[in-house]
């Protein structure tokens, strides 16, 4: 059970991110979550949106280099220790976490974590086994 994350190549220069968000805004694209991995020269912008296909088309048209990556979206109860539980399950199952970032929605009492792991299927399996709730692409759109 995965969601589709869009990764975009952004040159590291003043105004670069502003230009990108302008394109999103002009095309009425709503971001659910966003995170940037940066190097001295460039950044990889990672976003979660409702309509992946539409967003990809818009990005390509605007000349951005982008790709789609399947990641996990985990619902985390808003109380101490919840994240630890998720990470412990992954660690004990020997699943490596490449990166992660969090976002919240209007829904109270829960936060969401995006997890990029080396084995989506197995991670889904063990997390579900331990009663940890995952959200799929449709779920993201309903948030």
């Amino acid at each position, binding site marked *: 059970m995965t969601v589709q*994350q869009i*990764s975009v*190549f*952004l*040159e590291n220069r003043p105004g*670069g991110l502003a230009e990108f968000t302008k394109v999103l805004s002009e095309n009425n694209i709503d971001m659910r979550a966003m995170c940037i*991995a940066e*190097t001295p*020269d*460039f950044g*990889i912008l*990672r976003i979660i949106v409702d309509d992946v296909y539409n967003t990809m088309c818009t990005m390509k048209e605007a*000349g*951005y*280099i*982008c*790709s789609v*990556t399947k990641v996990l979206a985990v619902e985390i109860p808003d109380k101490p220790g919840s994240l630890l539980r998720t990470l412990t399950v992954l660690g004990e199952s020997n699943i490596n976490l*490449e990166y992660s970032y969090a976002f919240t929605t209007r829904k109270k009492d829960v936060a969401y974590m995006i997890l*990029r792991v080396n084995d989506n299927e197995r991670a889904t399996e063990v997390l579900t086994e331990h009663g940890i709730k995952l959200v799929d692409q449709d779920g993201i759109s309903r948030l």
Partner: protein
Amino acid sequence: MEHYYQPEIECASREEILKLQNERLVKQVKHVYDNVPYYRNKMEEAGVSPEDIRSVEDLHKLPFITKDDLRDAYPYGLLAVPLKDCVRIQSTSGTTGRRVVAFYTQHDIDLWDDCCARAIMAAGGTNEDVVHVSYGYGLFTGGPGLNGGSHKVGSLTLPMSSGNTDRQIQFMCDLGSTILCCTPSYAAYLGETINEKGLKDKIRLKAGIFGAEAWTEEMRRDIEKSLGIKAYDIYGLTEISGPGVSFECSEQTGMHINEDHFIAEIINPKTGEVLPEGEKGELVFTSITKQAFPLLRYRTRDICVLTRKKCSCGRTHVKMTKPMGRSDDMLIIKGVNVFPSQIETVLLNKGYAANYQIIVDRINNSDTLEVQVEMTSEMFSDSVSEVSRKEKVLVDALKSMLGIYAKVKLVAPKSITRSEGKAVRIIDKRNLYQ
């Protein structure tokens, strides 16, 4: 006091020089015609026979040799003696990655060493000097050339080669180097380091012979000040022999070309027409004494001006200005010849688009090379480490092609300026040509 290595030649009258050139040219043309089928064909195509060349006046009738010819004839096609008579090979980078190799007989090495000896003595060198050679040794002609020249002068020669700055400075202090030979950018770097370490009082340098890359008068003043020396320019190219084709004297207003070995012409790079003295154009050399690799009318692609005005040093050989530019797109970076086409070849081989830009700069007196490449969908990955890995593969491939490090910068697609559909490939921020 002015020192000369071969005063009878260096200060000969114009008539004597011309007489020598006429005799040697006639002989050389015959030698090349008889022994180099590649050039014989070119002469036949141009309808010229050796009998048509009776003096320097007839030189313009001969066809040019270009870097393309060197590539086409690689490696033995322009060799004029049996290989068993050759004792040395030197090499430099060529246009599309294929290297230029030049062959030398013992006679050729001797005349090259003589030329370098003249340069060292013009810089005040004698057998009492310690000549510190920090040019690279190996295929590059810098080290071997100045090394040989220093032996001829009878100076104590320190074959340091390039790199390991701490050791360079230590030897300089401990062994009392008096004449430094290296690239001007390395001289500037040595100067800075010596001053930072507070060792200026410990060095005994009096002169430096700097070449293999373009440098400005401003840089000369900086080096002279930081090392407390007089800095002399030297010019040469592997195709013709190596450093010492021309060299500066005490007047420091241009480099005397060793006219008893090389005839210089200035041509219009577009038409090939010979230009009168004092006009700016492309420098062309004819080698009249070399045996193994004697190039006739070789187009250097360096733009400069020749002058026969009387020189206060007493030498009578024609002087050339510092190169004022190139008639091709070759860059000299850290003394290494770099052609944009080499970079393009690597990019295409590695699956990148040919949209790139080369940024050359000089930071803290050291040349830097940055290749900006537009990101492509194929190249892109969600993982930073994956993108960095691909970047590293490209850096390694460039290093192996060019011989020097190039920083790779990945930029956004279509961000490299295109003027009239053609990309502006080179941005040289060094302003080397005044």
